[in-house]
């Protein structure tokens, strides 16, 4: 996990239900405890009444402006509208004009509803936060961890800049998009983190995702295998238990858990062979909500010591 610490932007992605948000929250707590000034972000969704990231961090709400929830740890929702506004302010000659544009109902509604404009707004907002400096000239957020939406949408988000450049090859938008794309593709500043589960299909899907990420030239930094079940058996114990269960007899309690453990072993091996980045193993922890992310962050710290 230490390899992630120098990065400016960590993009956490994976299929729905793999625990992306918990991993993003745990990484944020871990990095903050390591002394980094961390900002952990989710994509704002005006329709959502709940926030998975807020639940994982144990905070009541996540706002469009960063606020500090623990020493060195801030949280923000990347709001498209703010990205649009910042962008217009950057490219238009007068602030007044940008603000007037954002106040105009038609323009606001167009930007909010027209496909890909919200995603561009999110990307620009991220760029804006990466660039934010403190008074002493140091960057405000040394590390920004983004909890990206499910697989397909994360890829779609990554696909937009290049696609947009074909439509708008020049001008301020193109310049901004290029800057965004440079950030996304710079292995020094950016790393994608793929989260998956220790089961057959999720691993296949994670490998597809890894391929997709590489196709978009976004540097992959780490893969996490989440909710790995505890394996109590030694090799000879396993062989014996298998021999007990393989005979002709009615299904037995315990066997399904054993199968799950076996699948996890296969998944780890398959993943380790297929990707060139470190594969982190995150144990299945029977906790919920904010306590889960805290526990996982401390497990990450313990692992660092062992390595």
């Amino acid at each position, binding site marked *: 996990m230490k390899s992630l610490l120098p990065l400016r932007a960590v993009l956490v992605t994976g299929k729905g239900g793999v625990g992306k948000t918990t991993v993003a929250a745990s990484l944020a707590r871990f990095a903050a405890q390591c002394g980094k000034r961390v900002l952990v972000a989710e994509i704002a969704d005006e329709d959502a009444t709940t926030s998975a990231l807020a639940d994982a961090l144990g905070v009541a709400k996540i706002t469009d402006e960063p606020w500090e929830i623990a020493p060195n740890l801030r949280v923000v929702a990347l709001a498209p509208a703010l990205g649009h506004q910042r962008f217009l302010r950057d490219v*238009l000659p007068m602030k007044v004009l940008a603000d007037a544009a954002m106040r105009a109902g038609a*323009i606001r509604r167009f930007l909010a509803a027209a496909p890909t404009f919200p995603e561009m707004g999110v990307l620009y907002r991220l760029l804006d936060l990466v660039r934010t400096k403190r008074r002493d000239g140091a960057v405000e957020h040394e590390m920004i961890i983004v909890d990206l939406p499910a697989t*397909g*949408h994360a890829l779609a988000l990554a696909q937009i800049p290049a696609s947009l450049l074909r*439509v708008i090859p020049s001008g301020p938008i193109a310049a901004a998009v290029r800057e965004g794309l440079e950030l996304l593709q710079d292995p020094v500043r950016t790393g994608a983190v793929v989260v998956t589960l220790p089961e057959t299909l999720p691993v296949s899907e994670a490998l597809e995702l890894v391929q997709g990420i590489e196709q978009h030239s976004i540097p992959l930094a780490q893969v996490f295998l989440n909710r790995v079940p505890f394996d109590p058996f030694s090799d000879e114990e396993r062989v014996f238990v298998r021999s007990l269960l393989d005979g002709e007899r009615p299904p037995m309690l*315990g066997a399904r858990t054993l199968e799950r453990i076996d*699948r996890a072993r296969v998944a780890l091996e398959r993943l380790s062979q297929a990707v060139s980045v470190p594969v982190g193993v995150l144990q299945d922890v029977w906790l919920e909500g904010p306590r889960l992310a805290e526990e996982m962050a401390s497990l990450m710290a313990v692992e660092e010591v062992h390595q």
Partner: protein
Amino acid sequence: MSSSRPLDVRPSLADAQPTFLEPLVRSKRVIVCAGAGGVGKTTTAAALGLASALAGRRTLVLTIDPARRLAEAMGIPEASRAPAPVPREKLTMLGVPVHGELDAWMLSPEVVFETMVRRLAGDEARVQAILANRLYQHLSKIVAGMQEYTAAEALYSLSTEGKYDLVVLDTPPSRNALAFLEAPRKLSMFLDERVIGVFLPAGGGQKKGAFVRAASDLAERVFTKAFGEGFYKDLQDFLGAFSGMFGGMRAHAEAVRRLLSSDEAAFVLVTSPEPAALAEAGFFQEKITQLGLPFEGYVLNRSWAYTRGFGGPEEIVLPPAAEEHQRVALRKLGQLADGERWRAQRDRDLLARLRMDAARHSLGAAARGDGGGAAIATPHLGGAVEDLAGLAELARNLVHLDNA
């Protein structure tokens, strides 16, 4: 999943009762499966489609999830331009009657969009003008956002063209699935003439009021400055070419909404016992009920609740000569079994809660007067359903399972 393995529990037919899903796959025209990611939604949608085909109906399973799982499970080509049939010989093997059909399609925004343009644009010159527009090409290839716009469109045209008795829709993970429900509203917001009018060039028989003109000037200044002149021109061309079609698109959006609100549609929420998935399902149930859409019940997936006929490791008696590591191994297996007993109890409690919730909120359950509710559990199929035989087993379990 081979049926010879001891873990594949099929309840004996004597025990089996039809579940709430049985009448749905027999009578509905649209079934929407929704829920959090990773709960087996795609697989459930495919299994419901197969159950419908087994009941002799012509069925389409439509997924807007970009993940490529459905095609794998059903053995159909991915990225096809139209729904692809599951081969007849496979269906026959699974016991699907001759008039039952099963097609599957991974929705392609590009194709749906183009079909829509062809239907609404009228003359070929206009079709070509739209298809050649750079902005159109950009939008139609982008997946983010477009899926939701096109899913509603595809669902409507495919369920009304008469080729299918039932369309099962597998939605993307919850947050985006909500966007799908909101898509018709959002689409009409985007397509509102008052918004579009601001961007259209003056003239061409269109008169703009002073207020609109002021907004137009602002929009032109802002967009020309920000995007460059070429883009603004493209945008105007695009909206101009589309402007005659907006009425038709809006009418469609409303028709989709009417279909989804009617008693020909059913919303089924898929969840796992994970707290996060349950929270999403609860959130979704509220939203669906609020929107006046026909919520029918829950499918509790990845559940450990079903333990009928299972033995326990404590029944195993080792010979006196057994070695120490064998005794230790058996003891450890016993601990895993205890964990499963705990999970089974937790999931049975959960099932009872979901049934109560479904009975309270499901329109169908209220109408039928079956106070028993509508949530069912599928046995914890080890791993994932990976082929049609496994899917068929799941299909049978979904519509006919004695509810533990």
